[in-house]
């Protein structure tokens, strides 16, 4: 069970720095300002406005940026 505190921390897309080539395409498509080019890679900030549009993952040619979905099946 997640505590209220944990629930408030925004879950963000995930970056694999080893695969990122710093092309910056993910930064140009992001609407929420979470992605910031930093040297040859991308830093991901925890922001509240990321709506999980997954555009950053869509445009990343190297597979470095990932927006995984949790698969949840409520008990019936």
């Amino acid at each position: 069970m997640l505590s209220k505190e944990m629930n408030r921390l925004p879950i963000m897309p995930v970056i694999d720095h080893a695969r990122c080539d710093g092309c910056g395409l993910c930064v140009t498509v992001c609407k929420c300002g979470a992605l910031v080019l930093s040297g040859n890679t991308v830093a991901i900030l925890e922001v509240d406005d990321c709506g999980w549009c997954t555009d950053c993952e869509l445009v990343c040619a190297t597979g470095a940026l990932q927006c995984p979905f949790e698969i949840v099946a409520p008990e019936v």
Partner: protein
Amino acid sequence: MNITTENLSQLSYFVGVENDRLAGLPSLFNSKSFIKGQTIVSEGDKQENLHFVNTGVVKIYKTSSEGKEQIIKIVRPGESFNDLAVFGGSFCPYSAQALGNTTIIYWIHKNDLLPVMEKNWRIVRNALEILSEQARLLLALVEDLSFKNVTGRVAKILLQNATPGPEGYQRLTQYEMAAMAGTAREVVGRSLKNLEDSGAISLERHRIVIKDRSYLDRLAGLN
């Protein structure tokens, strides 16, 4: 915007062409900056310009009569679009929209490009390789959309991964689901939307919540 031969040498059609053979080309090109969400070309438009992405990124897609969108390709810097209309037909078979905040597009009219191609075999060879790659991609998409029950496969993947593991809920990206279903990410995106429209799942930010398990079972051929 000043276009140089250096800029052009980064474009897929001109890769490997000696710089001095590109000398007269920049003046034949135009460029324009688009903001995120702006349409660059629309399906059905008469459009005889070959477009290239300089910076940013472009989404190529088709829209069904019910307004559903199928992404065909993501076009990244150096790559082209509207090739099909330029080399035959003149009418754009898809729409293109800027995804990047500042997407700079270069274009050249076919009447300017064709005489250049006639004099340079390397550009023709590049064009053939690009067109053949595009044809391969479109055939794969036709196969996925018409012969494979991708939505059924996606339903099965969701059901198989709906049981939490020791570390909590299982997490899958659309690329991973695509690899598991033997299809492209663009097709998985559409399948998830179809499942959401039918009420079988809901997409809640980073969660896919299963709403109608028996419907998914039926789609997946599990009962």
